[in-house]
């Protein structure tokens, strides 16, 4: 596919910084209504006109890839199409309210949130849901704090969380943030959890096992019932990382598999825009035994309407208020648009697309049968180089070099939003990047705004603001 990304600027840069377009210094003391000792002396910021700002950001947007630009098959990120109408729903001025208002004056907001709690509980097979965590990792942290509070309430002192080696990095970091020692579980030869290794890892110290299912190479953990039994028999809880839920909507539910607590990545599974790195939302669902430990407040339905209620043994707060409203309302609209059949179909098409794409590419895929994503290997080529070459063919490449147990991994998740024709283009890009000469691959990309960026050099000499650019100009 032909592709040349926009490229503005001059010999030095692709678009001047705001500060290079204008820098204006003002004497704050002169304008301030406050005594001098309470104010700063001066303030130096770009002082541009609205037309100049509009052009600046329009150009920046043109130098950026997005789901609406073309295929964006980042594995584990679920870059699916974000329906436009959800933006209009979120922009409703009646929803632009302050969280400190009385509950009586917020019945509309609370009704939407309650509706989303209910939808998510149904989809996950959970008994209750909190919408407070503002991202997936925040959901993990919340879920592990809930598990910790549960054990503590039973005077059960447990110090370890077990995480498979193949898990998302956030699992390790979230468990550690909650104060647990992380026990890494090696992957079995078939890419799944090895039951013997799990038996050996669990003990009376096990607070929880964190598991992604399908796992990070797209395989369903077929032994999930046995896994749940092993963890539960040891007195631990089973945590579901919802990053890969897009594979299973309406086909299988974490609650039915024996999971006790889970988070949902609504920006992935429920199609809210990723916004260049957020905001997302990471609601947490739990089974009955854990409901009283959820963050405060939850939205409850009473005879008189909706109320905010505090779980009896709540862990407290994980966000200053109630999380990322603008994301949550979009997720509600998406789920309601699809309904039972649409959700089930979304997963079917996501899995179909991954399998169809895999069939079209000349790459070895060590672990099968996969679902919504697969880990291809670049073999004797550097996966990062192959990815850079793919950029020249007008597609975003997959997640590279992860999971680590797949050599030169290219973790690919096309999502249900790609058409068959688009998947054929994507496959062509995969295959061309692998067939091109090593020189072409190593010198790629050339069609993107920037050529290959020396990231190691950037890290050795960190320049993190325009103030640090100094002598470059």
């Amino acid at each position, binding site marked *: 596919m032909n592709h040349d990304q926009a490229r503005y600027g001059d010999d*030095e840069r*692709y678009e001047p910084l705001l500060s290079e377009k204008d820098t204006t210094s003002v004497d*704050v003391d002169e304008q*301030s*209504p*406050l005594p001098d000792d*309470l*104010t*700063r002396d001066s303030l130096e*910021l770009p002082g541009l006109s609205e037309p100049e*700002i*509009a052009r600046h950001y329009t*150009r*920046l947007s043109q*130098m*950026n890839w997005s789901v609406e*630009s073309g295929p*964006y098959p980042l594995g584990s990120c679920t870059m699916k*199409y974000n329906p436009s109408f959800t933006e209009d729903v979120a922009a409703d001025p009646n929803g632009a309210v302050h969280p400190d*208002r009385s509950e009586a004056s917020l019945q509309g*907001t609370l009704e939407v949130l309650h509706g989303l709690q209910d939808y998510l509980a149904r989809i996950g097979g959970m008994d209750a849901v909190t919408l407070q965590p*503002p991202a*997936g*990792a925040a959901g*993990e942290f919340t879920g592990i704090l809930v598990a910790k509070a549960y054990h503590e309430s039973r005077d059960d002192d447990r110090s370890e969380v077990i995480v498979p080696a193949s898990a998302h*990095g956030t699992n390790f*970091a979230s468990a*550690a943030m909650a104060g647990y020692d*992380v026990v890494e579980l090696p992957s079995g030869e078939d890419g799944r959890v090895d039951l013997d290794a799990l038996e050996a890892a669990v003990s009376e110290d096990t607070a929880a096992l964190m598991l992604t299912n399908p796992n990070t190479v797209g395989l369903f953990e077929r032994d999930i019932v046995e896994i749940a039994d092993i963890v539960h028999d040891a007195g631990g809880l089973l945590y579901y990382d919802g990053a890969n839920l897009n594979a*299973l909507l*309406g086909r299988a*539910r974490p609650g039915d598999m024996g999971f006790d607590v889970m988070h949902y990545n609504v920006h992935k599974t429920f199609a809210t825009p990723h916004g*260049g*790195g957020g*905001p997302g939302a990471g609601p947490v669902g739990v089974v009955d035994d854990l409901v009283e430990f959820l963050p405060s407040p939850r939205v409850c339905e009473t005879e008189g309407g909706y109320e905010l209620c505090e779980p009896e043994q709540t862990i407290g*707060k*994980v966000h*200053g208020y109630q999380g*990322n409203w603008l994301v949550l309302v979009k997720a509600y609209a998406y*789920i309601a648009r699809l309904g*039972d059949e*649409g*959700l*089930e179909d979304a997963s*079917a098409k996501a899995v179909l697309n991954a399998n169809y794409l895999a069939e079209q590419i000349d790459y070895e895929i060590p672990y099968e*049968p996969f679902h919504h994503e697969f880990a291809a290997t670049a073999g004797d080529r550097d996966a990062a180089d192959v990815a850079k070459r793919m950029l020249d063919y007008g597609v*975003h490449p997959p997640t590279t070099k992860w999971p680590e147990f797949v050599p030169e991994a290219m973790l690919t998740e096309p999502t*249900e939003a790609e058409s*068959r024709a688009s998947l054929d283009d994507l496959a062509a890009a995969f295959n061309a990047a692998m067939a091109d000469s090593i020189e072409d691959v190593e010198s790629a990309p050339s069609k993107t*705004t920037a*050529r*290959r*960026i020396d990231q190691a*050099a950037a*890290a050795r000499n*960190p*320049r993190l603001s*325009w*103030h640090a*650019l100094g002598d470059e100009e």
Partner: protein
Amino acid sequence: MSNHNRHERAQGSPYAPHTPEDTAAMLNAIGLESEAELFDVPAEVRFEDELGIESRSERELRAELSSTLAKNADLTEFLGRDHHTHYVPSLIDELSERSEFLTSYTQYQPEITQGFLQALFEYQSLVVELTGLPIANCSMYDAATALGEAARLAGRVRQASGTRVLVPEILHENKRAVLENYVDGTDLTVHTYPMADGTVDVEALAAAADEETAMIYAENPTVHGTIESRLADVGDVADDVEALFCLGSDVVALGLLTEPASVGADVVVGEADALGLPTAYGMGLGLFATREAFLRQVPGRLVGAGEDAAGKRAYTLTLQTREQHIRKERATSNICTNQAWVALRTAMHLAWLGPDGLVDLASQCVREAQSLAERLSELRGVKAPVHDRHHFREFLVRTDQPASAIANDLEASGFAVHVVDDHRLQVCVTDVNAAATDALVAAFEEAL
């Protein structure tokens, strides 16, 4: 059920482009006969029931949600307390909702995402200018979680010993609760130091601080809207006990009030969503800036400038070895998805205001608060502000009559104010509600 599909396709996802012919051909290509065969899910955990979620059309949903949200009372809000809003110019929606920004993700391939990277680099630079600190990350979830991360940073760095985190008596209860959870897995503990008439009681703070103190937190303005006058002394107390000084503020206040670096702040956290976002039921943007010494302990994403193969300046995520996807359980934070799009909007709003516009807006926050407090104080049985201090946006109001009864009456008249306790209310005024202050004062008088 309504006919909710745009085309006459199967009753499936309207956002999956497959025709029945496509599906059949694709299944055929992979050697399967039905979609059910795609799933390697054991029968014992297969879900055969219905979720019970009814699909609605786009038009039906817009009508439904519009009528649901219309159940929110139509109130003019005089509410603040860590969630502030100012007029958001139309330009911000127009530009930030360009799908190239909105539907992109974290910049794992920098060559094809220079636009967003540059915007985040500019956001970081604007925060550096506002705080005077040389390192700013490209977002935390909100002010409360940014404070939690700051405390964890204090617990990690060599420069601070000890395990006590000292926080002011006047602090949003939610922020305190989030902080408690963020330090739950560490040996840090949170302790309160007293305030004197709404600002830090420096002598009491000095008495509370000791060599076991890892971090001292103060805010400017405080959650009561009071402006601190002795921040340099707070910085000295922190220095004396080798603790970090963490200062909380917000992106508008920073345009006017004492520059954090000038009073020895080691970390600045706070609310950056006061610009760029309309009121969004508490959705935020956490500001996080710090000194060079703590660069490798910073939580969250950092965008750096580098060079590409054409010898031009280009931007990339950098120092990623701090982060969870590489460092796992030894990462500085678990944060992955952050609030990048809100940071984009905040940077746009700052650019739109420019330095004069920002100082004007911040000055208005002082003048409007002072003027409204004076007018309320003229009412019988009302004293405002309660604290004998300069205020930013908001202030406490003492009422002889029960505060909650007054708040209820005000709500019935179409105004929302915050009830602090039995005889204290809190009122917040900005450019957004300034035009309604006459009506508020009249309703307040009526309510007495």
